[in-house]
């Protein structure tokens, strides 16, 4: 697929459906979802717990835990190839080599009994066929690149000797090791302190620019990605309910859920409000979704149709901004920020 600017699509997820069989019924964790990432672009997948954002990531990497979880439909085209059709052997080459991964809790994704050096060189030797000496040299170079001082000495250490921020730097080094074209980062800074979060996000953005790597950032925090994402997909109850360029989506949200999220958080750049503006109600129970739009029970803008018919993602402008809301056209006059008091 070629876009007007000549940028080609790196990853294209088409009508993906991932279901889980639970005691209380089938959970459509990812329910017919389509989105894409262009080369070198940073895309965010944003939503709250249970919205399907992490399952989307796991589905792309084919890491959904069976037998309960299963990809039941759709395609995941990576550089034009449907990776859902690859053999397990071929898939292993995609993971780590072509798509790097960074997870929320670096301690649980690193092997505690292998040295930092070994964990970095393993991939280099397996995926790139480097000699142990070359791999070691490259590993030190990678640690230096992610801002870990004294990399030679650090290679001999173990994960528990690294702080949380250092471990996340190490994860980023591992993700970059085989020069992937996409990095998939699932809540990469959620477990970190705010001053360290800033460091890690700046580092990721800098590296993605320098090496032209595309990034898919999965997060529950709209604030975190505002500075870094080119495009944002907002998920709710297994579906994408809004997508647009970051600037457009934050300035003119056209789905009541996105609007609600933006309005509910207190902001440091604005006068303090007397009262916060929450989204009422509870997050949806995926085994018992209401008919029609899943957000209806919590929505302040719902009309009769919303409880009957599920709205498709439809364009709200010519710039690729789409919203799955029957009332999207009427949301353009609602201010994102409520009046400060």
């Amino acid at each position, binding site marked *: 697929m070629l876009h007007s600017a000549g940028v080609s699509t790196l990853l294209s997820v088409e009508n993906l459906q991932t279901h889980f069989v639970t005691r209380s019924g089938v959970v459509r964790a990812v329910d017919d979802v389509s989105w894409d990432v262009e080369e070198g672009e940073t895309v965010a997948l944003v939503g709250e717990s249970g919205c399907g954002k992490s399952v989307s990531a796991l589905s792309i990497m084919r890491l959904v835990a069976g037998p309960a979880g299963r990809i039941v439909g759709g395609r995941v085209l990576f550089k034009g190839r449907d990776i859902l059709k690859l053999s397990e052997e071929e898939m292993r080459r995609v993971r780590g080599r072509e798509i790097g991964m960074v997870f929320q809790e670096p301690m649980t994704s690193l092997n505690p009994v292998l040295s930092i050096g070994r964990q970095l060189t393993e991939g280099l030797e397996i995926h790139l066929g480097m000699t142990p000496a070359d791999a070691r040299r490259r590993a030190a170079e990678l640690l230096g690149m992610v801002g870990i001082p004294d990399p030679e000495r650090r290679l001999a250490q173990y994960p528990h000797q690294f702080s949380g921020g*250092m471990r996340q730097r190490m994860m980023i080094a591992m993700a970059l090791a085989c020069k992937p074209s996409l990095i998939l980062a699932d809540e990469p800074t959620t477990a970190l*302190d705010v001053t360290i979060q800033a460091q890690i996000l*700046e580092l990721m953005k800098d590296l993605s620019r320098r090496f032209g790597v595309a990034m898919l950032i999965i997060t529950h*925090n709209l604030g975190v990605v505002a*500075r870094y*994402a080119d495009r944002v997909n907002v998920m709710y109850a297994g579906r994408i309910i809004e997508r647009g360029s970051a600037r457009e989506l934050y300035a003119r949200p056209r789905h009541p859920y996105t609007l609600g*999220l933006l309005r509910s*958080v207190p902001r*440091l750049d604005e006068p303090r409000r007397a009262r916060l503006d929450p989204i009422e109600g509870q997050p949806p129970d995926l085994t018992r979704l209401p008919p029609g739009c899943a957000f209806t029970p919590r929505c302040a803008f719902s009309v009769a149709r919303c409880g009957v018919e599920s709205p498709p993602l439809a364009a709200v402008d010519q710039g690729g901004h789409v919203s799955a809301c029957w009332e999207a056209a009427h949301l353009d006059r609602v201010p994102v920020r409520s009046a400060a008091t």
Partner: protein
Amino acid sequence: MKEDAPLLEVRNLVKHFHVGGGLFGGRAGVVRAVDGVSFAIRRGETLGLVGESGCGKTTVGRCLLQLERPTSGQVLFEGRDLTTLDEDELRPIRRRVQVIFQDPYSSLNPRMTVGQILAEPLMVHDIVTDRERRGQRVRELLSHVGLLAQHAHRYPHQLSGGQRQRVGIARALAVEPALIICDEPVSALDVSIQAQIINLLEDLQAGFGLTYLFVAHDLSVVRHISDRVAVMYLGKIVEITDRKSLYDVPRHPYTKALLSAVPIPDPALEGQRERVVLGGEVPSPLNPPAGCAFHPRCPIAIDRCRAEGPELREIGPGHRAACILA
């Protein structure tokens, strides 16, 4: 007791933990989790206590309740020094001081219904001895926190995270406390639910005249709910003042860096915003740097900062900061 006396006053609180030197012969060390902290909270006020993980903010909360016995210092609650009381003497005090925890799931007994969870403190503290009246009080508590009477028959796992936190709040309210220590009460909740809980805490404060110590790392939430704010770094308060001064004219370089690291959900604004990205990481409280503990990461540190630990000194009316350059 004078009317304007603070409800709670903490004087030079110190809590050290001894680590290592055990069976495996590791080198013994002292973690200075809380290292000389003083503050006061007035009746009806909310004091925010912010800082990054390991700064000692949670330990301060635990020392107030005497869940951890402080190494030294005083905790004066309604004029009595809690550090001198034994467990029997503390029991009535614990009715007056309650806690709301971060993770409502792990702080609620999974084998008890919501009704039983709320009735338990009423029995333990002999507040409502009559069974029927207890049921009535449970329903009353549920309605205070925005839950329905039928929620009394549910188990914690049948509730959403936000509903569980409401149960945690109702349980704290059951004993009619004066002070509630809120330890990261919303950070485990979804963004859309956080605002509901914050509004609820504010309504309850207004309705019951509660006083809060609000321990959190989210500076935007702390600004919203607090009247005054204390910022902690490596076991010490580095700045304390009223909300407006702290956010409008922060004086400690660590406070400034923390505020500039908070992301704002607005790409247009973020694009122009200057950010102070702090280098380095929080040092280990096992081996804090000499002089000012913040100096290795401080963008404005001078030689004197390496040698001399700054006093938390008055730099304006009701505004104290521990920085020789503030």
